[in-house]
């Protein structure tokens, strides 16, 4: 009890220095937490994907499409429960800055395959029956203040022209982490327009989504699909939705790795700062430690005092950092929603934050602890100041 009191009192003996160190640790932990959350977001799409869904696309690359006639041939493959198809539309809303993912999809089967997009039955029917109907996520609609029934115009980049849609529904995510910033519309509208304007581009689907009956069948079904179309004009590449999402992530992996490294660098910087503080503290109190030793306290006691002080400072800083993370994350979610549709701090991140704070405290005190514990009484008392 006495030791604990001594540690706490010691930690704030030098108010300004302790305050600065706590602040430094808090900033570092905040940065660490936010960077970790950012990295997690990158993989969000991968984690969202279901094990029973496959994506089929043209084997050459994403910019090539597949004939719509493949739909019926895929459906005959054993193990296929449902099939839907669509195109990445890549339209621009007013200005390039307002980026959000937009697709043309076959509405009925798509909504069946993706139960995480929740629409009321009325909205669902209106979307299916309206050629120009479209559905937007809750966050997206909130951002541009769209209401059901609004007209929305997108400028096509891949499919030229000005496209007008009627917003028929606003979907909610089934889970908290579901992406609520997507926009999808009726594939028929795209196809009929293409038939009129560029006939050679009509009746083409950018990708097929396949629902399999059992997750174990995924590998078998993908092989069966790909072998069906081998040596045809449009060969396919079928993979699980997870692998498909991961292929995008892996292309930008270099940036992710850089951010990961940086999130550890910030911890190291603060470790150096904290170690500096502790080294000074120990240096100032050499005479005190010697006095304590002269009074009969053992090396373990002295070590405990120095070590404890470092941990107290680091943990207070860590605690403040964690508390600051939540309002910061909320701010990012509201202010930068076009980049980060979901910016929620996971419990794991909080644990890692605290662990990082603990590591800072431990590492910072290694050297001073050792010095305090091994000081020879006579040397310590000889020093003045």
């Amino acid at each position, binding site marked *: 009890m006495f030791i604990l009191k001594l540690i706490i009192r010691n930690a704030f003996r030098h108010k*300004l*220095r302790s305050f*600065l*160190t706590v*602040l*430094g640790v808090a*900033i*570092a932990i*905040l*940065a660490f937490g936010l960077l970790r959350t950012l990295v997690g977001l990158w993989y969000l799409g991968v984690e969202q994907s279901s094990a029973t869904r496959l994506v089929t696309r043209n*084997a*050459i*690359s*994403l*910019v*090539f499409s597949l004939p719509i006639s493949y739909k019926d041939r895929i459906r005959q493959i054993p193990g296929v429960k449902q099939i839907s198809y669509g195109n990445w539309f*890549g339209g*621009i809303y007013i200005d*390039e800055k307002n980026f959000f993912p937009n697709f043309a999809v076959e509405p009925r089967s798509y909504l069946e395959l993706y139960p995480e997009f929740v629409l009321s039955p009325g909205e669902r029917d209106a979307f299916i029956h309206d050629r120009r109907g479209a559905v937007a996520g809750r966050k997206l609609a909130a951002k541009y203040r769209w209401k059901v029934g609004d007209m929305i115009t997108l*400028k*096509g*980049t*891949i499919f*030229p022209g000005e496209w007008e849609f009627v917003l028929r529904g606003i979907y909610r995510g089934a889970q908290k982490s579901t992406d609520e910033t997507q926009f999808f519309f009726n594939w028929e509208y795209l196809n009929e327009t293409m038939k009129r304007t560029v006939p*050679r581009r009509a009746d083409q689907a950018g990708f097929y989504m396949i629902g399999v009956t059992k997750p174990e069948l995924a590998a078998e079904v993908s092989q069966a699909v790909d072998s069906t179309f081998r*040596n045809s*004009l449009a*060969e396919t*590449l079928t993979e699980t939705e997870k692998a498909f999402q991961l*292929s*995008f992530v*892996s*292309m*930008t*992996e*270099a*940036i992710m790795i*850089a*951010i990961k490294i*940086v999130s550890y*660098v*910030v911890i*190291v*910087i*603060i470790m*150096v*700062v904290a*170690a*500096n*503080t502790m*080294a*000074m503290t120990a240096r100032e109190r050499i005479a005190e430690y010697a006095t304590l030793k002269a009074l009969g306290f053992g090396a373990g006691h002295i070590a405990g005092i120095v070590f404890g002080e470092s941990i107290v400072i680091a943990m207070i800083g860590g605690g403040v950092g964690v508390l600051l993370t939540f309002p910061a994350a909320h701010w990012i979610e509201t202010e930068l929603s076009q980049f980060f549709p979901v910016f929620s701090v996971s419990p794991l991140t909080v644990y890692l934050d605290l662990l990082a704070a603990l590591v800072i405290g431990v590492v910072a005190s290694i050297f001073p602890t050792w010095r305090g514990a091994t000081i020879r009484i006579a040397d310590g008392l000889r020093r*003045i*100041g």
Partner: protein
Amino acid sequence: MGIPYYYSFRNLWTRRLTTILTASGMALVVFVFAATLMLAEGLRKTLVDTGSYDNVVVIRKSATSEVQSGVERQQASVIESQPEVAMGAAGRLLLAKELVVLINLPKRETGKPANVIIRGIGPASMWLRPQVRLVEGRMPRQGSAEVIAGASIAKRFKGGGLGETLRFGMRDWTVVGVFDAGSTGFSSEIWGDVDQLMQAFRRPVYSSVLFKLRDPGEFGRFKQRIENDPRLTVEAKRETRYYLDQSEAMSKFLTILGIALTIIFSLGAIIGAMITMFAAVANRIVEIGTLRALGFGQGSILVAFIIESLFLGLLGGLVGLFFASFMQLVTISTMNWQSFAELAFSFTLTFEIAWKSLLFSLVMGFVGGVLPAFQAARMNIVDALRST
């Protein structure tokens, strides 16, 4: 009369451990600062140097990149007949109708596929891009299934090296040459005969038309004419502008990330410097009192401590910059969001980045040292001498 510089310097030397710790904290910050700037600069250089100012790229209206664009054959012929197109030797037009598509290729190291740009080129394509040189092998023969690969593709992708084959569009293509395009984006492309590739991909339209202007000043007139021509649905951009637009999103992201990180990190380093300097002042109260008693003024004390802190910053800056300069050996490859294609670029250190980093480290040192220096200067002589 000021206090000699080496007083400040010697003080740092006497408390070596603390100096090293503080300076290394700052060095890390400067390292991150410099590395981010170098990365953004490398990207800028790669994409901006890719184009030349007197070349014009014509793509379909509202397409954001060549990959999304399609220019019909008749439209390409209309552009070809414009008077602004420069003539080369033997009356040949310096114009290339090209096809640009993405193909999926596995990387050599990981086996993970990435999107690579494959470009169908015409006879004038090489000529229009003086920065592209063939370094190994030969040019592909027209009308054959032969391609040449950019240096960075040859190195990083399976089947991209000289003599290897790539399979796409139901045919095998032999790599008969490797070209080097310096640090430009072309190094991450594969080139082959445009007609052969259009056949293989069953793409009856070109992606873009590239030509050299007869006179660089005529661009405005040309742009206005073809964008208002009812037969055409295209837009024209100078090649430099086109590549700048391609890199916009990426460089914005890198810059924002870099600034955010630097701000957060520098706060940490400044706090570190402050702690160090406050301790330096606290340890030397008697010394400061003595100096004042000897007749050095408040200003001299202030300057001495600020110089000490600037030294600390400069030391960190130099060390950080030293390590950052090794980053030039690193090449990063990532997907460019605008074209969805793989792009390799390296960290580029410029003189400007070097002095910015050093200035930044001095600023950190100054901000960290200014409060403690004032504290030292404002001390009462008698009290300072009395404290032991």
